């Protein structure tokens, strides 16, 4: 299974990105890592070029909200992305917030999985579960 990942916007926090890359590979995924400072359009374009089933976006510095709002509109311009699993994690708001409310908001933006300040392994378990459901062997 292919995953495109990276850190969205002008965000340079790279540590989590490296860990995500390693952990995904350890779990047997084929990883296309776009690294830090990645624009939303590049994420979607990378999914088209690679045929990835999963798009996993990180955001750490507080920019997530702005990008999140653009997801639905941008995705609607693509003709082949309907089945992609969209996932986002990291620090999804500036400061702190009500986790349930944050999850609901990002789902509304079009994400299937939302991991606000969720530990990586927990997040990857959630992904596995969804993938097993959506793409049964």
């Amino acid at each position, binding site marked *: 299974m*292919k995953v495109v990942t990276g850190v969205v916007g002008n965000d340079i926090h790279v540590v989590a990105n490296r860990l995500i890359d390693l952990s995904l590979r350890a779990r047997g995924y*084929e990883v*296309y*890592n*776009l690294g830090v*400072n990645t*624009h939303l*359009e*590049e994420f*979607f*374009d*990378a999914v*088209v*070029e*690679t*045929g990835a089933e999963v798009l996993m976006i990180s955001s750490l510095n507080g920019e997530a909200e702005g990008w999140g709002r653009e997801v639905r509109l941008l995705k609607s311009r*693509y*003709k*082949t992305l309907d089945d992609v699993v969209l996932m986002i994690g990291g620090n999804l708001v500036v400061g702190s917030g009500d986790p349930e409310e944050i999850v609901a908001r990002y789902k509304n933006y079009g994400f299937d999985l939302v991991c606000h300040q969720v530990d990586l392994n927990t997040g990857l378990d959630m992904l596995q579960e969804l993938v097993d459901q959506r793409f049964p062997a």
Partner: protein
Amino acid sequence: MSGADNRLLIDVGSTYFKLCTPDSIEQHFRDFNRDILEDLRNKCGDTLERFGKDEVYICSSANGGLSTLIIGVTQSFSLKYATNIAFNAGINIIDTILFQNIEEYSIPSDLIDVVIIVGGVDSHSGLFSPALYDYVGQLRYSNAVFVGSAQDAQQVSRNIDHLVVLPNVIDDRLHIVEEHLKDYLTNLYQQDIEGKEDIKNLYQITSNQIFSTPYIVNRALPHIESRVSVANPFILLDIGGATTDIHYSKDLVDENIVTENEYDRLVFKRLGVYKSRQSLVLAAQANEFVYELLMHLGATENIYNEDSDKATRILMQLAIFLVLYKMSPYGEAYISLKLLAINSIVLTGGITKVLTVEEIQTIIAFFYRKILSSDHNPVAVLDSNYDIWTLGTKV
């Protein structure tokens, strides 16, 4: 130039040709009723006679080079990579087509020299559908090349006649792989130049290979400091009669394109002061800042219809402004340059014979103040003796 270096360099452009000997430079408007060689012999016969065949070096940008249409699956990867490679090989891009919307594009009426089809990493397949074959089937083209996913190559080949298949320009980390497509395009361009009757005749006066001008210029850039005093980073503008070329160093773009070349090239096809004068005027009229710029230069829009030295100068000044504008975040070029980081703007070509440094500097200052709201003011450097081109033929 060293004394032992007895060479005659000739550059054939779309509007004029120039000759450069160890001690002189001459430049002449071309006479389009004559074959190039005849025209050259007529205007500079004496100069030609002083050099042996092995001492004559010729490059050409006449006819604006080859044209390409690129069909790719995304803007950020396949189209961007192929565009970058095509520009660097000296090819002009007619249009780029995003495959998913291919049915919405019109069919260009021009004969296209080469159609480039690109998309997907090698581990992906099934990126194209019959819509591609329908579209390509309606094009008039001389060559077609596929540089997308290796898994799709066979399928696409079966449906497009005489398709050349080369290794993918996108590797499995989504990075660009340039060399195969670049070599292919450079060779096509080279063959095209050599195949033109006019150019073939030039081999009567040279025994050296005739190259394309952008190739020569790009080759000179890493060595530019030996000839011209520039402060890095710089951009080089070659505002010609038909097209405008920009060469820029890689550190001026924030891009996902990582290659070994230090310099990239971009062409604005219909931006020139002679052959493309009409489209230059249209671009100027469509730009909301040009009115103010004209006032600043003490001119009015009437200048567009004038045929005078002053009109040529103003048009050249507008061309500089329009190019900078196109390269800025407000322009529609496929990349935007970090213009605030530029320290020198080098100008080469015919423009250096017409405008003074001051006339250029005033445009640069206007651009930075008005468009980028900045006092930054890169230094204009004029390559008035064609040093860069001379250097390129020698490297």
